[in-house]
């Protein structure tokens, strides 16, 4: 970094940040959010060193009833500062399948902090560790103020910082060669809530929480570079030193990320007054239209099912090869996807990722939930909506993958993860306190996706959509909690749903109902003292009440025992089928440990099954849901024959054809 470059940032800062309110465009004449944390940031990117030189002006408004004596800030990139940070200790140095290169450490260093009155607070901050005792962690600072900020007042701080992006992109953010995905990059104020600061350290298993505001960001990059960012581009001005400054403006958002690369290939489209811009890698350019179509699908479904997307645009970034650590990530109006050259259309990875990441624009960016403490409220609700949309848009069979006879829906995919580790933790827990990363993933993504789908099947699709729409409408641009969501769900559904959410959110209870026993035997004629040999009154009476079986002279007593094997109590349906084709549906509230049903009919019992319509994907064992009176030899034999065949083929080495034989005969 030369003196000239420092000077250019300074001049830029003076010119552009002197009175940003006077210059900035207006997207929403009436603010959508409380606009508590408002940032103007001028930053210059050095592509060779992957460093950022930034000057941040933060105007923070005290909306609490307390006088604020100190501020807390996140310095997220310090999570990659060394191998002793809390992030690196918890992750073991791995995130999203990537490790930081030997010299690829990232950081954020604050060089000065001043307040608008000119007082220098550079030495008034200290690193704190609110979540653990790791004194090596430098991802949160506490800044003591010379005088308190009174309720309703604002304070403006000028912060100069230098940051370096990790290489390769690691845990969402970073740089690889000419490409950079710049996320969690600037000193970001925490959320003052309930009489204290909610400003957690950067953990391996956690995402974020922030207050809404207005962002003006001036990014200076080499002129050959293309830039994409949160919000709208106001202008791009070429500088004399071969760089260009891009001004982006975003209102009522609580984060800001951007990307730059000289190699991006740009595609555009629009739907429902939302302009879509896709920045593809050159080797993926033939998938540009596919990405546009996926983004349109996402916007269209969310718009119709969950409410209006208020922002005018969306940018989708295709991460560079070797930089997938920055893929599949969400920022306001700006998401990253991820694909591969040659990926067939029937493997809907980009579609799924785009629908998922766009979903965060509702469940995290319209609804400012706390991902540190209640990650399911973003990832879990988002997984649920992702399952629904993928099923409707690309289902009913193979909505995730439908390739060469291999069909995979997202719902069973999510069950696959869940049923293996269903009871490790309750859903609601601080993100870094789960039993393992796997348990965090299951409880933040899969389990909520499954229990909300179960709830939808219980309440009905329309009621569930009404709940979600009302949730968006009532809580947008605020900070809802789990209790806010569950209270609202009960209100909209018109019934108290605490019995469901208390189990699903706050316990590790597993849902498992089974048909334990089925029995069908011919009803014996009454014998012994007090009974004449014939006619048998009981049998005659049963035969008379089943006039449709007029040819039958026998009566069968059939018994079905169903059990609740898990702690999760949920009402279930039971279907009991008889030889004459009759099917009976029973409803059980599911609270006792077991229930027995007895039938006396002129027809034999064939099978009994709980949840016959598969409405309860949260059930961890669908195989024990049913029991047949007779052995199911045909199915077992056929599957065993297939297995035998695969073994025989695999044995027959050298089998150059083996791999293809195996795959093409699997399904």
């Amino acid at each position, binding site marked *: 970094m030369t003196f000239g470059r420092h000077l250019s940032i300074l001049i830029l800062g003076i010119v552009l940040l002197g009175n940003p309110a006077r210059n900035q465009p207006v997207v929403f004449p009436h603010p959508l959010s409380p606009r508590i944390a408002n940032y103007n940031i001028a930053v210059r990117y050095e592509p060779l060193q992957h460093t950022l030189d930034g000057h941040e002006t933060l105007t923070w408004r005290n909306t609490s009833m307390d006088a604020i004596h100190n501020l807390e800030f996140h310095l997220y990139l310090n999570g990659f500062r060394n191998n002793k940070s809390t992030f690196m200790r918890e992750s073991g140095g791995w995130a999203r399948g990537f490790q930081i290169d030997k010299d690829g450490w990232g950081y954020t260093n604050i060089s000065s902090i001043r307040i608008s009155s000119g007082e220098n607070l550079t030495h008034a901050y200290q690193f704190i560790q609110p979540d653990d005792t790791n004194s090596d962690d430098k991802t949160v600072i506490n800044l003591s103020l010379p005088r308190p900020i009174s309720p309703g007042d604002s304070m403006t701080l000028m912060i100069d910082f230098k940051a370096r992006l990790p290489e390769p992109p690691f845990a969402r953010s970073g740089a690889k*060669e000419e490409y950079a995905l710049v996320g969690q990059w600037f000193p970001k104020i925490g959320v003052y809530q309930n009489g204290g600061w909610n400003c957690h350290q950067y953990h391996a298993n956690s995402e974020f929480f922030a207050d809404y505001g207005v962002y003006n960001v001036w990014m200076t990059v080499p002129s050959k570079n293309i830039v994409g960012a949160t919000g709208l581009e106001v202008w791009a001005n070429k500088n004399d030193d071969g760089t260009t400054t891009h001004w982006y403006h975003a209102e009522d958002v609580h984060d800001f990320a951007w990307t730059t690369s000289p190699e991006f290939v740009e595609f555009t489209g629009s739907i429902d007054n939302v302009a879509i811009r896709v920045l593809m*890698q*050159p*080797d*993926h350019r033939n998938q540009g239209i596919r990405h546009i179509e996926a983004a349109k699908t996402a916007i269209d479904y969310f718009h119709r099912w969950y409410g209006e997307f208020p922002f005018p645009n969306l940018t989708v970034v295709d991460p560079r*090869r*070797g930089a997938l650590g920055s893929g599949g990530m969400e920022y306001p109006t700006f998401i990253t996807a991820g694909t591969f*050259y*040659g990926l067939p259309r029937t493997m809907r990875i980009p579609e799924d990722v785009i629908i998922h990441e766009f979903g965060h624009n509702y469940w995290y960016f319209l609804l400012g939930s706390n991902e540190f403490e209640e990650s399911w409220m973003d990832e879990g609700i988002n997984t649920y909506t992702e399952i629904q949309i993928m099923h409707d848009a690309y289902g009913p069979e193979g909505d995730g993958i439908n390739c060469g*006879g291999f*069909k995979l829906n997202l719902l*069973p995919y999510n*069950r*696959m993860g869940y*049923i*293996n580790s269903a009871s490790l933790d309750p859903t609601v827990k601080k993100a870094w306190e789960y039993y393992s990363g796997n348990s965090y993933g299951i409880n933040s993504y899969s389990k909520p996706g499954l229990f909300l789908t179960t709830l939808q099947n219980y309440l009905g699709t329309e009621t569930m959509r009404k709940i979600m729409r009302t949730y968006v409408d009532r809580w947008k641009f605020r900070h809802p909690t789990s209790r806010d969501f569950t209270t609202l769900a009960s209100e909209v559904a018109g019934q108290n749903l605490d019995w469901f959410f208390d189990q699903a959110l706050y316990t590790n209870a597993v849902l498992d109902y089974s048909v334990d026993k*089925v029995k069908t035997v011919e009803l014996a004629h009454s014998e012994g003292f007090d009974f004449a040999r014939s006619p048998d009154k009981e049998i005659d009476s049963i035969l008379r009440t089943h006039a449709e079986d007029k040819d039958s002279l026998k009566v069968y007593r059939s018994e079905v025992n169903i059990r609740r094997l898990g702690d999760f109590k949920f009402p279930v349906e039971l279907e009991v089928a008889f030889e004459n084709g009759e099917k009976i549906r029973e409803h059980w509230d599911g609270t006792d440990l077991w229930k027995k049903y007895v039938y006396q009919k002129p027809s034999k019992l064939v*099978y009994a*099954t709980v949840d016959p319509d598969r409405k309860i994907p949260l059930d961890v*064992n*669908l*195989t*024990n*849901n*049913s*029991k*047949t*009176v007779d*052995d*199911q*030899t*045909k*199915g*077992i*034999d*056929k*599957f*065993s*024959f*297939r*297995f*035998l*065949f695969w*073994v*025989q*083929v*695999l*044995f*027959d*080495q*050298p*089998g*150059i*054809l083996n791999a*293809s*034989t195996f795959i*093409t*005969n*699997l*399904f």
Partner: protein
Amino acid sequence: MNYLIDGIKSAWHNKKMIFILYAFNLTLGIVVMLPFKTILDNFAGHSLMGKSLADKIDLEFVIEFFAHNQGVSSLLMSLFLLVGTMYWLGELFLSGGAYGILISGQPFSSKTYWEYAGAYWWRLFRLFLWSIPIFAILYSLQFVETAFVRIVFGKDPYGNILFWGSAVKTGLGYMGIMLYFLVLDYAQIFLISNDVHKTRHALWKGISFVVSNFFSTFTLSLILFLIGIIGLLTYNPISGALQSSGGFIVLALLIVQQLYIVFRMLMRIVYYASQTALYKNKIPAPQPQAQEIAPDGSLLEPGLETP
């Protein structure tokens, strides 16, 4: 093509060998299948999920099966590896018998077959051990692609280069395996034709034969490979059509599957026989005769008496 026709004729004359190979394959296959079937039966033998397996494979069921039978996959894998190793050793044994019959030109008889199998097994096993470095070299052919991409496109090639490069790499990998088996097969033929005990020498002869007759050996192998592909393409739609749950369909699927396995065994004998025909044509050599097997398993020169 003449070698192929000779091979088919020869395989037909010795068709009992096909059924020996098939019976062996089926028996060991059943050894692995039976525990699996028992576990499956216990898990889903009275469930509608088990019933639905008669229609098609339900991925959700497969997921549940392994989730609720933890340890089964490792048990099956261990069993597969154990029985697979036994199968491979047994196949080496059986191939000795087959080559012995085909090279000697004698009509098949059980006695002769098993005598040849016993006489050559240990040497064929040693030959295989010596061939492992050859396998390593030929299998490494595919890394030519890796080197090429690194030199031409650097450490950070675009995705399309990696994609097509990996296709080429896979092709080279297959090619390497084919070449390895060519070498091993002709080394086996040399060993049995000449009744040599020095297996390294046989391996070298196999290599030099393949190199000096590359076009004919490789073409023959390729034709048989393509016939195998045609067999696969014929089998797949037939088995794919047998998806319903009727008892007859289940039986029909089993028959079609087993016919396909028999076809593979037929192709294996045709392969042995065609290669033998080619070898004999290129290098007429003294051929072993069944009655000249010594008690120690080695073959005697014609006319010499057993001491």
